[in-house]
């Protein structure tokens, strides 16, 4: 049942569905045994016992082989970045028994240093999710933040989801995994606004970070900053899978710049929002470019008029490059090419794991998106 690899890593099937009850004590005991074994391995190789630092607990909820594979790939990448305890919950078929396995791994770095992580994998039947918190809560590490990442789509109304999220401090979803991403964002917003105490984020928010930074940077320029409250038009182009990113960018601009919705219309490939700013109307169009890419394609902003105007554009040039141009009346157009590679899944998760408190900027953007969805739903009956 137990196998330990020769490298500074190990794996133990604590329980294999043979009827033995999965217990916290059993998992903890085997984990200690595993670490003692790994410490011996490291000591043999390096001449000293590895120093372990653990900075968070990450609970991962996955369904099916594909999601489990993605979860494990992401954890391997994360382990080098953020030493942590991961508790992977594989949601299995109803009626199957609970099952658990543990593994731990130390990656040797230069100068005798090592980053170590441990994974507790629990297979749980989908009809017994309500029992899981009794395992999860004692296995989460004290004094460090606890995150819960749902790899696939989520039924925010389900009892299982609500029960499992009771112990999480921060929930990470990926709206790109949902069939109707804007609707999912609206449901997520409703959940976070409800009686839960946890905070939340969406990986599509992390995916949009670099573009938000580029747009914000364009308005650091003293000649454009004064035009922020004179934005007239925003055009956002996106690839089919990036509708949520486009919505979140619109929500981010609207909430940072105090715009409110007055009208929302939608055709097959385009959503048009008429918003009110302090100085007048702002038209925001979100266009599905139907291109083959997987992200935002362009964001163009027109602000001011005549001799006090600016055109800002961020556009994708290739898979890993973006171009930013700033055209201010009276000054030649400036363009700069920047690297803008799509982050991998583990990089996105890693980025979100660095934030363990509420992100009010995201919350407000999400609230805006929810408002747009509600407006569109009401207009389409």
């Amino acid at each position, binding site marked *: 049942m137990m196998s330990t690899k020769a490298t500074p890593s190990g794996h133990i099937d604590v329980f294999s569905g043979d009827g033995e009850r999965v217990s916290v004590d059993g998992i903890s005991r085997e984990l200690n045994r595993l670490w003692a074994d790994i410490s011996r391995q490291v000591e043999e190789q390096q001449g000293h016992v590895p120093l372990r630092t653990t*900075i968070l607990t990450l609970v991962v909820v996955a369904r099916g082989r594909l999601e489990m594979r993605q979860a494990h790939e992401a954890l391997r990448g994360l382990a080098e970045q953020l030493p942590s305890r991961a508790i992977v919950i594989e949601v299995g078929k109803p009626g199957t028994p609970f099952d658990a396995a543990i593994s731990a791994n130390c990656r040797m770095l230069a100068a005798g240093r090592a980053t170590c992580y441990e994974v507790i994998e629990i297979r749980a039947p989908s009809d017994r999710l309500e029992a899981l918190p009794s395992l999860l809560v004692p296995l989460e590490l004290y004094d460090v933040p606890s995150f819960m990442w749902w790899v696939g789509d989520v039924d925010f109304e389900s009892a299982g989801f609500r029960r499992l999220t009771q112990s999480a401090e921060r929930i990470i979803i990926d709206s790109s995994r949902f069939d109707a991403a804007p609707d999912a964002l609206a449901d997520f917003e409703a959940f976070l606004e409800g009686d839960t105490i946890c905070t939340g984020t969406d990986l599509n928010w992390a995916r949009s970070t670099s573009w938000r930074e580029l747009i914000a940077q364009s308005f650091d320029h003293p000649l454009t900053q*004064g035009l*922020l409250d004179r934005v007239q038009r925003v055009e956002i182009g996106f690839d089919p899978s990036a509708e949520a990113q486009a919505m979140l960018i619109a929500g981010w601009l609207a909430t940072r710049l105090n715009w409110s919705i007055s009208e929302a219309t939608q055709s097959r490939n385009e959503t048009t929002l008429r918003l009110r700013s*302090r100085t007048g109307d702002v038209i925001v169009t979100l266009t599905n470019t139907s291109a083959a890419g997987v992200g935002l394609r362009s964001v163009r902003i027109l602000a001011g008029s005549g001799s006090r105007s600016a055109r800002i554009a961020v556009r994708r040039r290739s898979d890993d490059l973006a171009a930013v141009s700033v055209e201010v009346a009276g000054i030649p157009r400036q363009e700069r090419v920047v690297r803008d590679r799509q982050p991998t899944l583990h990089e996105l998760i890693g980025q979100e794991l660095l934030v363990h408190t509420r992100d009010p900027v995201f919350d407000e953007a999400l609230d805006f998106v929810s408002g747009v969805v509600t407006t569109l739903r009401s207009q389409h009956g």
Partner: protein
Amino acid sequence: MTISSRASTIHEVETLDASTNPLREGLLIERTPEPFAMVIFGASGDLTRRKLIPALYNLALERLLPVGFSIVGFARQEMSTHTFRAKMREAVDEFSRRRPVDDAVWSSFAEGLSYVRGDFTDADAYERLNAHLSQIDQERGTLGNRLHYLATPPDFYDDIIENLGAKGMNDGPESTWQRIIVEKPFGHDLESAMALNATVNRVFDERDVYRIDHYLGKETVQNIIAFRFANGIFEPLWNRQYVDHVQITVAESIGIEGRGGYYDQTGALRDMVQNHLMQLLTLVAMEPPVEMMADPVRDEKVKVLRAVRPIRPDLARRFTVRAQYRAGFEAGEPVPGYREEDRVDPDSRTETYVALKLFVDNWRWAGVPFYLRTGKRLPKRTSEIAIQFKRAPHLLFSGGSIDRMEPNVLTLDIQPDEGISLKFAVKVPGPMMNLRSVHMGFQYGTSFNIQSPDAYERLLLDALLGDPTLFTRRDEVETAWTIVNDIMTGWARMQASPLPTYEAGTWGPPEADAFLSMEGRSWRQP
């Protein structure tokens, strides 16, 4: 009147604050610099090639530079802009921490690079430079913002600064800025430092002067402040009641690396103690600043330097040790002694090692010795600050290994492996009360496997943003020189005494060991 006033207030609330960018809220980067033109004086030199251009490229790669930024190289060497760009590309290829270089980003970056040839003493050259900068303002929208970087030998500082002033390049339209970065050494003694400061301040306001000590750009150095003032548990112990002594070590395994001409005129005291070690001393000993802003932080650092008890010339022998390395080994290879190094006087008395005992005479630190040491050709490259605490007041456990129990030590590792560790005693499992010391360690590399920016990246960005917190203020420089000057005067009176030596690859001369052992202490071997 009241109604009008209220209306005005409401208007202010509703209007977006033009002095800040609301889109920045929540982003990791609070702001990026306004468009600027940076002039590097000494652009054909080593510092530009190894540090400055790679750092600027890395900033561009991280998208921390604004659209339209421009960098103008200025030096005596005949070179076209095309050649300058090609040379800088080679430099980035060789020295950037972000390799391979991204061709598209480089190409965009290189559009902002240009070169002006000129002699640092030639007034006409500054005329040409100024015209070139005005053209850049027009073409690239840099608005008159300037950052002048003195990357030349210090002999040229006066000429460059005077010429910048004479051509009005220290000034510009309102709402623009003109700053200057001065590389160390800031003088070679108190007098020359004061003269340099006077020249700089005749032309540039002190708030626009950025004296760079790259040590302050290191992540762990900044973390000293975070560690001390963001954790409630250490600060109560951080004083004479609990601390026995402090050791600050900056050790180098390399020799003088072809800089014999410079080093032989300088020595370890001027080259390392006056700047790097004094900076570490101030950060570890200072009081909490009222806020994390440039002047409150620097005020507290200056207070520490002012509280350092002067080592009067007649006390230099008691409070200092200096030495020179002789032939030995580095990593198994034989290396020459200092006096055999190229361009070093064979009878040189320049110190390559220095150890000091300093006292900070204030309420917090009265009576606590701070031992500082630095040297070349020591066994390894390492920098650390070790806070050694007093022993437990009553030893409950006697006999056996107990008498040899070492006191608690908190170590702040600065390089090469950044981290913090604490040494404390535990009981060895078993029936006997055997104790031994163990280390509890935190290492940045294993907790945040994220590459830290190079010190120059951080400092250049701060200068472009107008944040001088991590730069040295005039009074800091002069107060540090005052301490060092006294020591140099004392050493000058000891010319007749033989200069101690140490074998290359060892931890310094026996005199340095005796220096601590006579007080019942010993140097750490980091």
